């Protein structure tokens, strides 16, 4: 079991105050990250070592069933495993062999820890090492997606952290760019074209789409976070000698420009070239956003904690669409990785970290925001109370990064409002 790193530094004077709460947290656990990771990494299989609850979560969180055989499954711990009638490690070996026999195309097998596997102290890293040695041609790794260790997107963080240990050593100190955090393939391809045009390279992405294309890492590596929830992965990369490029996240026209500029500055890209390369896509993004500005300008927005994307998203809504932020909740506030985001928030926003869901609902009801961004458990009940909502999970499962997706991102927020105005049934 790894311990949760201390992510919170004392409040600095310039940032808004943070309300820290403890109570019921209405959030997913890190296992949920498998829903997108198993599609992103095409030759990986995710074997959760957990309970029936874990398996049930996976098929419920996937929302609609995935109409292809999923590259994930659960090894459900049973009474006889707990009572010591069966040797848990032997059982795990047997189930892993079953998975690999069924899916000979798999190149990486992740053993994913869960709440029960961690409470009974089943050592998955040892199991992974044992299985890795015993199976030819398949890399076996482990990470924790348990709710006691990880919140929702942190499951991607722990997965990528496990991958960082596997990255080959970069042969030289030559500068290379590593973009970190799962992105939709289409977004990745767009960024790749922009980096090429800017003359930035070599560029690699983590996670890579297949197991045989793991990027090398070393002191020449500059990494640029594409997602804000990668505290452990960032630390692991720094442990391998890589350096973080400080930047806001590539959400919206401004966010994407600033994100690209941070890399361009690091590579010493000529200002005119930078302007030439991004002018057209940035203009498209601004035009697309313009169509949504009226719908969101002056509207009040309340974020419940979900994916850690809340602060960059709030910055985007505030800066590029003129929305009024009431409360922005996040499961964890990672000040270092948000160093370029926090100063861009308005001074009067209430940031909150952690959750006491009943009290937060009280605040939300009192504020009557025009739009509430929240999880699936809260959305319909709030709609029934007359509050328009946006499911936070859609912001994780939809390509929203980059210039070409800026309009789509804005649309995710304006659609509930437009729909409310359209409907003539009460």
């Amino acid at each position, binding site marked *: *079991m790894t*311990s*949760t790193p201390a992510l919170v530094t004392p409040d600095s004077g310039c940032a808004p105050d943070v309300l820290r709460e403890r*109570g*019921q*947290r*209405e*959030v*997913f*656990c*890190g*296992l*949920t990250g498998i829903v997108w990771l198993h599609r992103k990494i095409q030759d990986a299989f995710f074997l959760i*070592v957990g*309970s*029936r*609850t874990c*398996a*049930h*979560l996976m*098929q*419920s*969180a996937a*929302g*609609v*069933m995935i*109409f292809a*055989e999923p590259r994930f*499954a*659960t*090894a*459900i*711990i*049973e*009474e006889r495993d707990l009572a010591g009638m*069966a040797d848990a490690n032997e059982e*795990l070996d*047997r*189930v892993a062999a*079953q998975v690999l026999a069924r899916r000979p195309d798999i190149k990486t097998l992740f053993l994913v820890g869960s*709440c*029960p596997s*961690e*409470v*009974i102290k089943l050592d998955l890293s040892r199991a992974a090492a044992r299985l890795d040695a015993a199976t030819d041609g398949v890399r076996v790794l482990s990470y924790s997606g*348990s*709710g*006691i*260790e990880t*919140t929702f997107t942190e499951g991607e963080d722990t997965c990528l952290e496990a991958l960082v240990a596997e990255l080959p050593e970069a042969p030289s100190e030559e500068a290379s760019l590593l973009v970190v955090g799962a992105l939709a393939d289409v977004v990745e391809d767009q960024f790749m074209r922009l980096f090429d045009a800017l003359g930035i390279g070599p560029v690699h992405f983590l996670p890579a789409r297949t197991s045989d294309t793991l990027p090398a890492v070393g002191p020449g590596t500059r990494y640029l976070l594409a997602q804000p929830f990668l505290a452990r992965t960032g630390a692991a990369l720094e442990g391998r000698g890589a350096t973080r490029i400080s930047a806001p996240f590539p959400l919206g026209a401004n966010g994407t420009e600033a994100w690209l500029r941070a890399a361009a500055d690091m590579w010493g890209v000529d200002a005119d070239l930078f302007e030439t390369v991004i002018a057209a896509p940035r203009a498209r993004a601004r035009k697309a956003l313009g169509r949504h500005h009226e719908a969101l300008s002056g509207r009040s927005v309340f974020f419940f904690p979900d994916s850690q994307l809340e602060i960059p998203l709030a910055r985007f809504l505030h800066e590029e669409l003129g929305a009024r932020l009431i409360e922005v909740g996040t499961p964890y506030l990672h000040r270092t990785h948000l160093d370029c985001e926090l100063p861009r928030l308005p001074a009067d926003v209430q940031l909150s970290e952690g959750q006491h869901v*009943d009290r937060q609902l009280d605040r939300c009801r009192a504020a009557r925001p025009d739009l509430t961004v929240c*999880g*699936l*458990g*809260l*959305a*319909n*009940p709030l*709609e*029934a109370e007359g509050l328009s909502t946006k499911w936070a999970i859609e912001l994780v499962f939809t390509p929203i990064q980059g210039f070409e997706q800026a309009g789509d991102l804005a649309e995710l927020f304006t659609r509930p409002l437009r729909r409310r105005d359209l409907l003539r049934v009460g």
Partner: protein
Amino acid sequence: MKLTVWTYEGPPHVGAMRIATAMEDLHYVLHAPQGDTYADLLFTMIERRDRRPPVTYTTFQARDLGTDTAELFKIAAQEAYDRYKPTAMLVGASCTAELIQDDPGGLATTLGLPCPVLPLELPSYQKKENWGASETFYRLVRGLCGAGAPAPGAEKAERAPGRPRCNVLGAAALGFRHRDDVKEITGLLNRMGIDVAVCAPLGATPADVSRLGEADFNVVLYPEIADQAARWLEKAFGQPYTKTIPIGVGATRDFVAEVAAIADVDPAAGLDERDLRLPWWSRSVDSNYLTGKRVFIFGDATHAMAAARIAVEEMGFDLVGLGAYNREFARGVRETAERYGVEPLITDDYLEVEAAIEAARPELVLGTQMERHISKRLSVSCAVISAPVHVEDFPARYAPQMGFEGANVIFDTWVHPLVMGLEEHLLGMFREDFEFSDEAGPSHLGSHGGHATPEPGQTAQADAADDADDAPIWSEDALAELKKIPFFVRGKARRNTEKHAAEQGVAQISVDTLYDAKAQYAR
């Protein structure tokens, strides 16, 4: 450990949530780690409920494990009481909390809350969702009406004058069409001159549950949830309960007879069949094409058994497979399977069900959302008859499964995915028409009816496995001829031809072999 891709049932505490969420004025405090709150979305999204389930979770994290998770539970329980003021509370643990053994029941007792608190022991590593729902309902019934039960051996009180009264038991949150079944059966009982005293758990308060013993008898709609409670009520209050599940025409008639006998009323009013259409719809000539359609049925035991009877006796289908995922009720499924001459499949292993369906090559699958998934992969028509449910199993319209209206709904639902009678013939006659191709699937289903029946030689992996070395080989000509057969009977034609070839010792299937087989198997 058991390898699981998809699960038919959630953990037992989700069953408890289905009871708590169905009821009013009840609150469930669940000792559970962060993340277990996902279960809320089952109710708010799949069932579109407009309120959060009445469940408070402790959502402990790793840092709490080293300190005091028990204290966390006490705080959560006290806050839940103060905020929601329920008239009764359930307390329990999810799978992870079960391992840390904090004893929620004992902890809640120390709080001295001013309402009944019922502790639930739901062993997560042995039991599943339906068992959890049944156990929770039983504990509630026993805990809330136990005090009112007459002493053992006491004379049963004379029945009060007036209309007989019954309780309707078993309907819960997240059930397959429970909302509409309750309405349909309540209407049926009312027409027979019987009043429904309490419907539970759906819509009941703890106070309602505490007066279950006052009714004359119980109607059990879903044995998976209410059988245990009904047995106890029979023992404690001498209330008989119904054993027939009124799904289908025959079963509804049997149910009316059973209720009439228990309540001592005339069954005639219950047998008013003016609005029942299934029998005529099924006898009308258009339905001839339903004859002998190969049907595979899988679901919870109650719905699967009912579907088997309807399929064989009321639709004229050919039953080629019958199974259920809840082992607790396997006996009835085995008996039904024997009656209809098929092998029962009792398993909660999705992969095993998939293999059985693939082997049986049905033309229609009646199953759960899992079988819908399997059918889509195998390009077989499918209708959903049982939980586990998805959002589309909560239709806006009135769509019961029970009673005579339920039978009408079932006829429509099962026939809908199939190719219609004359369309089937036209497709067979004019297969070369580029616009009227069977590749498009049934015309009323748009692209959803599309299909790609695996052809010999290009089948899925599983097929490759059963194509043993001695399997006959298809000649080019025979393959081309096979493709001229409409997709919905192509699988059958292929299977029959291969069987015929094997029996005749034919190594290579020619066009003649194909038609020999057709003549051999012609009905």
